[in-house]
């Protein structure tokens, strides 16, 4: 079975993609956050502007940089700009 990660989309990212979560394949050479984001933008071109403005988390931790590796079964979250209050 192909290893996968779960991508969670919030707020405007969820609206643009039309779903709250995606299962994304991890290629044999591994996956960085940067590559995952490029693949997401390719699959959902309207998501690209939102991704440029978003913060990202791996397993509930904010990413230090986009070269961080995303491992199979990880959870990757896309957080568009916050709007609480």
């Amino acid at each position: 079975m192909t290893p996968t990660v779960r991508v969670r989309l919030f707020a405007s990212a969820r609206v643009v993609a039309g779903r709250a979560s995606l299962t994304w394949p991890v290629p044999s050479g591994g996956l960085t956050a940067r590559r995952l984001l490029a693949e997401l933008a390719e699959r959902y071109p309207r998501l690209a502007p939102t991704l440029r403005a978003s913060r990202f988390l791996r397993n509930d931790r904010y990413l230090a940089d986009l070269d961080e590796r995303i491992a199979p079964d990880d959870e990757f979250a896309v957080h568009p700009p916050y709007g609480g209050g």
Partner: protein
Amino acid sequence: MVVRLGPAPILLASVDRLLRAGPDDGGVVVFAGRVRPDPRRGRRVVALDYEVDRTPALERLRAIERTARRRFGARKVLLWHRTGRVRVGETAVVVGAACRHRAEAFVAARYLIDELKASVPIWKEERARPARRPPRPPRRPGARSAG
């Protein structure tokens, strides 16, 4: 310290009991943010739907609370945000800071709400309806309608 995140209505009457200011806390500042109709472009907001990524949101709220204590001398802190649908007139968020003096309490409470809005993974989506138009003037007897 009290951190709350959930769909239950926020009761301002319970804030004093939750904040638990002590006898040495000479200044207590509480801010409540409420949903307003915000009428514009022919529509008015009837509710806001709040979405949250709960685990990192709770971690951020706790980090904000620690910073308010360390940097602003807050002795007691309350951070409370509703999730789900919040209707016009209802309270969506409350922050409170109890300090020795009023000046630091105001600064701490301002920090709490500003930092919450900027750095906690909470989002809102407006639920709006067309704004009510003013009632038409009564027709004069015998007047023809246009068109």
